[in-house]
């Protein structure tokens, strides 16, 4: 080889496009509860992994609330070492199959991805999911490194994302961990809220099983505040610290007339019946749910999308989203809005409900609404919707599902003297990092501190809390 030949400039590699995500046909999937997306094939995963340019300063890591070493795991994927990639992820995140599916990556790791500046960002979430699913299918159970036992006991209230993340970390630090869950199944919003077609419950079970194998104890059917108080746990049961991760599970209603008519649901009830109780399998499962023909869901968040798509799968002929702002302001993930649209959900934007109309037997027959227009920006920076005079109209319905948000469930706070709350009833903590409440030895994180947020933010809070709790236990 001559020197000249060597100096021939490298041929530019053909640019690999962002790999598509295979999914079920929209018309088919609108009738079943199977997962919408199939996940990457091996080829797609490899192609996508090569798109990562392995930056010197990987900002994607800072974009991830639990700081997964993203370039490192993607490099392993590109080398075909999926189990190695899984190991890298699990150093920071014990629930990758869940996060890879439900995180809003477009607002987190993928938003800051350098490749995304000129092209579409690397599909970090889809790769994370691919690695996690690969591990589940091919991997053998491997015990993570666990520090020597400290003899300290921590009680975690709530088994949602925040509690689970905190439990996984604390157990690896050598502490004893018990999770108290009010429902009969652990997982919080992952089992009662997010539907099967977005997050298969077998995956949640798999991840919970992993936590159990590494030593986390689960006590289901334990409603803290009733069967035990936080003080009982510390004074009678010998727990050295308590982490409150009980979420924001109290549904908000609209406070309009007719809201207690038959056929009006909170999204929490509708989704709990369908997801946790598997009412879509009635009568094989005992919990009933109605197959309504014309259903409207009020709201524009992910919960609203989950509810309307569930209603569709239960057999609705017309499934509407009624939202008081415009599509641009909808807080739901873009991907979910598009999925809903492809499945046939009808969007009624800039519209607010005035009253639910019913018949003499107490059943919903319709909803009176009013058109809105966008006015000046409000405190949240979003333009405030203003009713248009005289634009009232009635839409015929047999069910209304209210998905306008949730509040803090007051049960734990009411029975825990000395716990400082803010004016909305959420628990006040020292800082995001310490998660320390006003009560000694009691920490809090996730939705019960921030109000309804995302799965990954709750997990991030759980991780922060675990560090802070461990620090506290050291000094006991």
């Amino acid at each position: 080889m001559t020197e000249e030949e060597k100096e021939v400039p490298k041929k530019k590699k053909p640019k690999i496009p962002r790999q598509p995500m295979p999914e079920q046909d929209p018309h088919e999937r609108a009738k079943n509860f199977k997962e919408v997306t199939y996940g990457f094939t091996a080829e797609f995963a490899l192609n996508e992994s090569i798109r990562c340019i392995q930056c010197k300063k990987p900002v994607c890591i800072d974009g991830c609330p639990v700081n997964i070493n993203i370039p490192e795991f993607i490099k392993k994927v590109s080398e075909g070492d999926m189990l190695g990639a899984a190991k890298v992820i699990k150093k920071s995140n014990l629930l990758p199959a869940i996060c890879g599916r439900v995180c809003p990556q477009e607002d987190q790791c993928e938003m800051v991805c350098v490749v995304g500046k000129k092209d579409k960002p690397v599909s970090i979430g889809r790769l994370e999911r691919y690695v996690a699913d690969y591990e589940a299918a091919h991997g053998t159970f491997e015990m993570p490194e666990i520090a020597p036992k400290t003899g300290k006991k921590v009680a975690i209230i709530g088994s949602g994302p925040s509690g689970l993340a905190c439990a996984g970390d604390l157990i690896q630090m050598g502490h004893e961990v018990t999770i108290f869950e009010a429902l009969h199944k652990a997982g919080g919003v992952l089992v009662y809220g997010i539907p099967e077609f977005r997050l298969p419950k077998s995956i949640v079970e798999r991840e919970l099983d992993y936590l159990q194998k590494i030593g986390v104890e689960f006590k289901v059917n334990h409603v803290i505040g009733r069967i035990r108080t936080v003080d009982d746990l510390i004074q009678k049961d010998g727990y050295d610290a308590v982490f409150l991760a009980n979420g924001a599970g109290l549904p908000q209603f609209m406070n309009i007339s007719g809201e207690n008519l038959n056929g009006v649901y909170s999204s929490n009830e509708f989704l709990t019946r369908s997801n946790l109780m598997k009412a879509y399998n009635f009568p094989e499962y005992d919990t009933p749910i109605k197959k309504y023909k014309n259903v409207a869901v009020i709201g524009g968040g992910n919960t609203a999308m989950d509810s309307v798509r569930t209603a569709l799968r239960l057999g609705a002929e017309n499934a509407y989203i009624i939202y008081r702002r415009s599509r641009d302001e909808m807080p739901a993930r873009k991907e979910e809005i598009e999925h809903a649209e492809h499945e046939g959900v009808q969007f009624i934007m800039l519209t607010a409900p005035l009253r639910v109309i019913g018949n003499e037997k107490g059943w919903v027959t319709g909803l009176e609404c009013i058109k809105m227009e966008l006015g000046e920006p409000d405190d949240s920076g979003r333009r405030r919707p203003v009713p248009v005079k005289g634009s009232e109209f009635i839409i015929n319905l047999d069910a209304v599902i209210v998905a306008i948000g949730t509040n803090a469930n007051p049960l734990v706070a009411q029975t825990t003297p000395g716990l400082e709350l803010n004016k909305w009833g959420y628990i006040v903590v020292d800082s995001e990092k310490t998660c320390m409440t006003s009560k000694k030895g009691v920490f809090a994180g996730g939705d019960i501190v921030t109000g309804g947020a995302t799965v990954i933010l709750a997990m991030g809070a759980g991780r922060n809390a675990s560090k802070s709790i461990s620090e506290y236990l050291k000094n006991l």
Partner: protein
Amino acid sequence: MNKILEKKVWWKDTPAIKEFVVEAPWIAEKHKAGQFVILRVSENGERIPLTISNKNLEKGTINILFQEVGKTTMTLGKLNVGDNIFDLAGPLGKPTHIEKFGTVVCIGGGIGIAPVHPIAQALKDAGNLVISILGARTKEILIYEDLMKKCSDEVRITTDDGSYGRHGFVTDELKSMIESGMKIDLVVTIGPAIMMKMVCKVTEPYKILTFASLNTIMVDGTGMCGACRVTVGGKTKFVCVDGPEFDGHQVNFDEMMARLRQYVDEEKVAKELCQQGTCRAA
């Protein structure tokens, strides 16, 4: 966990009435009058609420009494001593407000007598004069007569068919007591929604404070869904966390009764399948 230690069949004809003594020391320790549990009978089961009707603190047990009206209660009734209840969560709900009121009348209708029992006991322990009115369709299905006698200063009984006690409804007996000039400081009522509504109608003109313990449809029983919501004094309340007990004069019973009928069709389907022999506990 949740092991059935004793089983009593109060009435074996359809719909049967049965009672279990269940091992549940943590629930027994915390339970206060007026509170309930939510249970499931199998992995495919639904969650249903049942009131704790008695307990034994030393033995760490609670009693639950139920009538086999549909699939879940029929499946539950098939369990025997030594079996476990698949899922059991409690105690749930706010305890009854107990203080010394003076003379209290405790009214139980049908199997509603069972949940009245711990409340009557607590009111008695707080120094009240307790008069209980127990109503049943007929003599054979009257439950808890002896237990109620133990915690009441006086027990009055009514049967719809006149086979025992006064011929008539509990409201007839209550009306007679009020009209006789008896000073009543509190009425507590538990039973079918229509009975509670009628009791409240009797006491309202006399402004007698009346607690009704509501039995709405529930799913989680912890305040996260609102399936159990009722209108009380014009405001929406959740029976599982704000109740189950409310000022009966403030409750919109008609709305509550309409909401109780939401799933009659589905309940029928499930029950028929069960009667064909498909119901079986885990």
